[in-house]
């Protein structure tokens, strides 16, 4: 039973990881590409970590929970990089398939002076 669960987790982890990277390649513009990796990998890596937890907890003498930490750190750091990537993209006006919000454009043009919408 545990083995099946493990296998399923591992497989889904691998699959989500792959799909995440697939998004990186398939999506049309930078903003949409951003979604694949930052999300799919979260679950991908997450399931793999759970699998690892399960695996080592069943194998070794004691429970193994330290994989939680990887998740914890990823949850803290991954959004930061996503945010900065996105912010940089807006700053650089990378082409997007949709219109950028007026708020952003004007504020960027006015060097940080906000015009209320």
């Amino acid at each position: 039973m545990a083995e099946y669960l493990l296998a399923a987790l591992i497989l889904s982890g691998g699959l989500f990881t792959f799909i995440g990277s697939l998004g990186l390649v398939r999506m049309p513009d930078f903003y949409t590409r951003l979604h694949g990796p930052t999300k799919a990998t979260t679950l991908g890596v997450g399931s793999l970590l759970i699998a690892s937890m399960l695996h080592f907890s069943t194998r070794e003498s004691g429970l193994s929970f330290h994989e939680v930490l990887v998740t914890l750190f990823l949850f803290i750091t991954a959004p930061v990089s996503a945010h900065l990537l996105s912010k940089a993209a807006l700053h650089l006006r990378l082409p997007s398939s949709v219109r950028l919000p007026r708020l952003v454009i004007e504020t960027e043009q006015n060097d940080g002076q906000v015009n209320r919408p």
Partner: protein
Amino acid sequence: MNRWLPHPFLSLLLAFIWVLLANSLSPGQIALGVLLGWLIPLFTSRFWPERTIIHHPLTLLGFVLIVCGDILIANVQVAWLIIRGPRHIRPAFVVVPLDLRSEIGISLLANTISLTPGTVSSWLSPDRRFLVVQGLDVPDPEALVAVIKRRYETPLRKVFESC
């Protein structure tokens, strides 16, 4: 609470993390964890300008669970979107007006948004009143704003700003 224990919650967290790191519940490791949990905040307290107080730990726990569930669902949705290909997505930028004031609150909200399905918090206005979120597939921007405010901002305000 004072000079000698600037961030009790952090200390606890660190001790807990230490035990996780060591992957062992031996008394020695716990003792070491507590020691470090006390020492490290002492050293780094200068890096924490404001003291963060968590008002409703239970709400926080609930929030974490909701987010985890959302992540799970979102991942499947996004995976499907990616597999179906770029022609079926409706990306959009959404401006979310913020009620949260504290830096930590805003940061956590932004993080949560980025972690959850198909949305990335892209941009924070200089006065920190608006958060621009980019969504991968947004049929209805208004609804997205509403969901974000209801599902994430409200609990966070409750935890960090105690209104």
